[in-house]
């Protein structure tokens, strides 16, 4: 089945994957547009005031983020399933039906966010409009839809994995995606006790992005190394198991770093600090692993007298390497910055978190999922070696540079908040606005907006490239 690696022709699973990728890319665009709206509001507070308020723009910004990533993650699994298991995905008809259910539900949810925005303080608002809980705002009716879709997806994965060849990558994905889907249930209830509310809310958010999603990325990187540069499966899968041990070993109890200040007991200081301090280690390992395998494979080929590049898909591999480094930088370094309680006491709830959020979501997830989209373009067009175009390069530079610039600007803004609003002024209403009015803060917000626009322009190049690169003539077919 190895010959099928780079071609998606004739596979229904891969066709479904392209649907998922397409919808994901559209939502990605929406995420950036509403991000820019929110960024403008920091600079010009009157912009769309009481029309599309910051809360609405921001809700769509972060919800679109979660949704496009989940779509692209599902798509990537449907893409790699036939390659890994050697068979067509079991239950693909259900998978296709659920795609339309999922996509339709998301469109309705977003329209309601945008047109209804807020409701009265009743249960029906939570059921029909939104739940008002950061990242998992989706109303309860949509929660149930998401659970059904996720169960269908997990069924496809398990049925295919058990019927076909169950590689190490598939084994990890099966366990990981089951946990990923199951964890969503922890965010589906209402309580008057905000400490209990946030306790379980973090079960979903943290155990997704700092545990199950990271392991998912490890599996994707393993698949990418095998398909794109022909790395040895045994080596890659050994690394994958080490990464699983390190990621879950640090990430599961690393959850404690969200339990410092929400009413939870004192012992979380120590558990959260020390386990999460280890979270960057597997990210360093993943970065080294990608570069090591690349160098090793290239070296072996050169030794045999083939000095040509081993990379079968230039833009995808670029995004995979950016992922390896961005994950370490955004999630690892920026996360470690403020993970110790002594530091977090002052940085918690400032733009510091926002800087980390931008760099980590981009570095750890956006990059590799964009890479998977390029792999799908290569496969559906039956291209042997896919080479970059001017647009691929423009997109890579502008998106990466833009997000990096936003991250740095937000970090500077975070410093102002920590020093002025928190340390100096004791976090009151007046202290908050003293920090916001500072020159460093407002200039940082100008830069953030500028860099956000750069990112958006980069996205336009990316969209154009994904639509047109398959037709370019300079690839090896």
């Amino acid at each position, binding site marked *: 089945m190895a010959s099928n690696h780079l071609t998606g022709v004739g596979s229904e699973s891969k066709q479904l994957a392209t649907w998922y990728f397409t919808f994901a890319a559209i939502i990605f665009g929406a995420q950036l547009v509403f991000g820019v709206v929110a960024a403008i509001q920091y600079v010009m507070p009157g912009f769309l005031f009481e029309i599309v308020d910051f809360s609405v723009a921001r809700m769509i910004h972060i919800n679109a983020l979660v949704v496009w990533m989940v779509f692209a993650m599902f798509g990537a699994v449907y893409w790699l399933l036939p390659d890994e298991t050697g068979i067509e995905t079991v239950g693909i008809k259900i998978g296709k039906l659920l795609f339309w259910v999922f996509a339709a539900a998301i469109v309705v949810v977003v329209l309601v966010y945008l047109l209804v925005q807020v409701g009265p303080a009743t249960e029906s608002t939570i059921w029909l409009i939104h739940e008002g809980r950061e990242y998992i705002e989706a109303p309860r009716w949509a929660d149930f839809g998401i659970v059904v879709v996720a169960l269908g997806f997990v069924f496809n994965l398990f049925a295919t994995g058990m019927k076909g060849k169950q590689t190490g990558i598939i084994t990890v994905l099966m366990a990981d995606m089951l946990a990923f889907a199951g964890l969503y249930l922890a965010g589906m209830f209402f309580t008057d006790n905000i400490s209990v509310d946030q306790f379980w809310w973090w079960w979903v958010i943290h155990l997704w992005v700092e545990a199950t999603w990271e392991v998912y990325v490890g599996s994707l990187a393993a698949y990418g190394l095998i398909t794109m540069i022909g790395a040895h499966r045994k080596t890659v899968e050994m690394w994958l198991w080490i990464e699983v041990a390190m990621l879950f070993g640090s990430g599961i109890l690393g959850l404690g770093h969200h339990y410092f200040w929400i009413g939870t*007991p004192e012992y979380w200081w*120590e558990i959260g600090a020390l386990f999460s301090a280890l979270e960057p280690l597997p990210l360093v390992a993943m970065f080294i692993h990608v570069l090591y395998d690349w160098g090793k494979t290239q070296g072996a080929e050169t030794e045999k007298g083939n000095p040509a590049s081993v990379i079968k898909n230039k833009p995808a591999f670029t995004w995979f390497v950016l992922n390896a480094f961005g994950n370490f930088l955004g999630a690892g370094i920026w996360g470690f910055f403020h993970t110790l309680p002594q530091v977090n006491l002052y940085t918690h709830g400032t733009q510091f978190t926002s800087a980390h959020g931008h760099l980590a979501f981009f570095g750890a997830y956006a990059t590799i999922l964009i890479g998977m989209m390029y792999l799908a373009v290569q496969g559906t067009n039956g291209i042997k070696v896919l080479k970059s175009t001017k647009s691929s390069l423009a997109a890579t530079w502008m998106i990466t540079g833009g997000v990096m610039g936003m991250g740095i600007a937000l970090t500077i803004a975070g410093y102002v908040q920590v020093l002025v609003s928190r340390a100096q002024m004791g976090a009151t209403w007046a202290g908050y606005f003293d920090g916001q009015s500072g020159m460093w803060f407002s200039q940082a917000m100008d830069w953030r907006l500028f860099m956000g626009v750069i990112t958006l322009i980069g996205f336009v190049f990316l969209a154009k490239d994904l639509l047109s690169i398959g037709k370019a003539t300079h690839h090896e077919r």
Partner: protein
Amino acid sequence: MFEPFVDVVPSFFGWLNQGPLTLTIFLHTVIILPMFWIYKQEKARIEREG
């Protein structure tokens, strides 16, 4: 080294948290130690398989 116990509610984990690092060193040890046993088993298996 050992500090007075000042947690609002006493608990097993609070009790383990007696001073800098005590709780986390304990938990890390409990997690790592069984890996020695896994190592020994796998070593024996590899030798058996020759």
